[in-house]
Structures are given as structure tokens and as C-alpha cells.
């Protein structure tokens, strides 16, 4: 039950793009076609789950016992960068088809702030999913990160669908490009606000 609450709250109520403002760059950048958006979303989900798992273990078994919590930012970004690089090499070797589908998105993910953001979030904030507030354990952290990534995917694919339609409509010249995309995102965020209150 708790996992279900985590998933619903992460995808809809606290949507990573539309209410927490993480990963806006790929959200605006690669969301012009539904296919690319889906590819990006899949790659992010994969990387986010793995990196949260690894950074969680590093935080609790290396940084905290040694008392070097201030090295968190530096360590996490290096781990994520190395992990992305490694996933790229492994995918190329064992699944060329998947590498072809996700390959071009992988290098972009290192600087996607939602990966680092979620990794830091799960080890630094207390969460209360219906019950008492507590730090997340390993299982919850990974579920939370996958759910966050799915939320990213939902927002990205919805937005790409709308933008494909926008291409064909008549937009005032000054609003062409980014401004109209931002207004669309604002309306989408307004719609997602309807979910708030669903999970305490």
C-alpha cells in the first residue's frame, strides 16, 4: 500500500517537471516529437533507478560513516557521470538495438538535473506517505526514483503530443518557440495542480 502511495504521489501530485521544476531543459528540448520523448523518458528511468541505488549505498555506507557528508555533491555527480558512461558501454555490447534507441540520449542525462536532484532528495529529506515522516529506506528510495522518472515520462510525452499539434497552429510571431511552449507547460501544470490533496 505504501509503495502505491509513493508511486501515485511521485507521478501526479509531486510531478518532477510540473511541480518541482527539475529536468526542464530536456522537457523543453526533446519534447517536439512523441517518439523522441518516449526514448528520452525510458533512458532517464533506467539511469535514475540505477544511480539512486548506487548513490544511496554510497551515502549510507561511505560518506556518513566517514563523516564526509559535505562531499555529497561532488561524489554524486561523479558517480552519475561514470554510471552513464558505463551503461552506454554495456548497452553497446549486449543490446545494440536498445543502444540505438537510447544511445543519443545517454550523454545528455549526466547534466539532466532530475537525476542528481532525485539522488540528493531521497537521502536528505524526510517523507511521509500517509504515515509518520521518516527517511526512506533502500527499497522505497528506488521505487520513489522510478516513480519520479515515470512522472517525468508522463509529463514529457503529454507535452510532446501537445507540441506536435502546436506546430500546425497560428501563433503570434513574438510567442513562437520557447514562450508558447512555456505557456503550454503552465496550463499543463495548472491541470496537474488538480491532483494536489490526493495524497497527504
Amino acid at each position, binding site marked *: 500500500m505504501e509503495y502505491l502511495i509513493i508511486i501515485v504521489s511521485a507521478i501526479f501530485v509531486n510531478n518532477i517537471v510540473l511541480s*518541482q521544476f527539475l529536468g*526542464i531543459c530536456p522537457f523543453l528540448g526533446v519534447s517536439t516529437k512523441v517518439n523522441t520523448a518516449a526514448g528520452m523518458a525510458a533512458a532517464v528511468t533506467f539511469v535514475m533507478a540505477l544511480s539512486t541505488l548506487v548513490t544511496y549505498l554510497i551515502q549510507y555506507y561511505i560518506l556518513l560513516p566517514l563523516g564526509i557528508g559535505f562531499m555529497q555533491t561532488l561524489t554524486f555527480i561523479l558517480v552519475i557521470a561514470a554510471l552513464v558512461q558505463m551503461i552506454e558501454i554495456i548497452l553497446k555490447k549486449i543490446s545494440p538495438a536498445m543502444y540505438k534507441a537510447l544511445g543519443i540520449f545517454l550523454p545528455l542525462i549526466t547534466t539532466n538535473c532530475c537525476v*542528481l536532484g532525485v539522488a540528493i532528495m531521497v537521502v536528505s529529506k524526510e517523507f511521509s506517505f500517509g504515515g509518520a515522516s521518516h527517511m526512506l529506506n533502500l527499497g522505497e528510495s528506488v521505487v520513489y526514483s522510478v516513480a519520479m522518472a515515470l512522472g517525468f515520462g508522463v509529463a514529457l510525452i503529454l507535452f510532446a503530443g501537445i507540441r506536435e499539434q502546436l506546430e500546425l497552429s497560428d501563433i503570434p510571431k513574438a510567442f513562437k518557440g520557447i514562450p508558447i511552449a*512555456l505557456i503550454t507547460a*503552465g496550463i499543463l501544470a495548472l491541470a496537474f495542480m488538480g491532483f494536489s490533496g490526493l495524497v497527504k
Partner: protein
Amino acid sequence: MSKAGIILKGIIKDNPTFVLVLGMCPTLGTTTSAINGMGMGLATMFVLVLSNIFISLLARYIPDKVRIPCYIVIIAAFVTILQLLMQAYVPSLYEVLGLYIPLIVVNCIVLGRAEAFANKNTAMDSACDGIGIGLGFTLALTVIGLVREMLGSGSAFGVKFISGDGMLAFVLAPGAFFVLAYLMVIFRQLTKNVK
């Protein structure tokens, strides 16, 4: 190009928010009030200026193939210094900006300037570029924060000028997107003829 020219270019022609559209996450996430926006802008500027200077000094010694990881380490080091400084001297602001401070590491403005400017210019010019882009970012964030604060809670820089509540939506997520979109359009119109 003169030093002043580089700084001015960063503020207007290469404005990171309104023209280059980089670093959108902190732009939208931290501008709930003018003070918060300004704090975030100054924090980013601190990292930007220092990392620009160091990267321009070290660029000769960094092998080309591993330059991006090297830049990230340099940037992450300055972000860590910033985190410790802010925790010590402005803990309340650090609390409010929260997650967005460590996320300066992955702010595309910082890495973008390292790659596009600092690694092929002198330390002095890179410092000016950092100041210019940093000021452009700070100004943009302050203006966005000010508009959202005025509409959303009826105050400016923390001083209330109407009684009662404002339009809450402007402090929340949707307002951030709307305000940024309209300000971007206005900025584009105003600077259309600036070369």
C-alpha cells in the same frame, strides 16, 4: 572586445535566461519572491565567476578528451565551497533554496560558459564573462521573482503593499511558466533592435 563590452554582452545580447534559455530549473523553481530569485542568481554567479577563472587557467593542462569530467569536478568543488559558506552565513536562504544549490553543478549555464568561453579566453576575460552572464541571470531571476511576488502575494522584496492575499497560482508552479513566458516575449521585443 573590451571588458565592459563582454559584461554588457552577457546581460543583454547573451542573456542566459531570456535569450539563451539555459538553466531553466532554478529560474522557475526559486523565483517565488524577488529576494529568493536574487539569492539564487548571486549564488550561481559566485560559482560561474570562479569556475570560469580556474577553467581558463587550467585549460592548457586538461587533455581534450576528458575535459568535460574535469570541468564538472572543478564546478562541483566550487559548489561545495558555496554550500558550506551559505550554511555558515545565510542559513535561512540556504534552507529556502534547498536542493537548487547543489544542482548548480548541473546548471547548463556554468558548464556552457566553460565550454563556449572560458577554455579559449584569458582568465581576465573569463572573469568578466562570468560577471556579465551572472548579472544577466541574477537580473532575470530578480525580475521574474518580483513579478511573481507582486501578483502572488501582493508584496515586493518582502514589503507588502496590498492587504490580503494575492493570486496564489503565481507563487505555485503554473505562475512560474506564465510569468517567464510573458517576460521573455517582452524582453525579445525590447531588445529586438539592440545589436
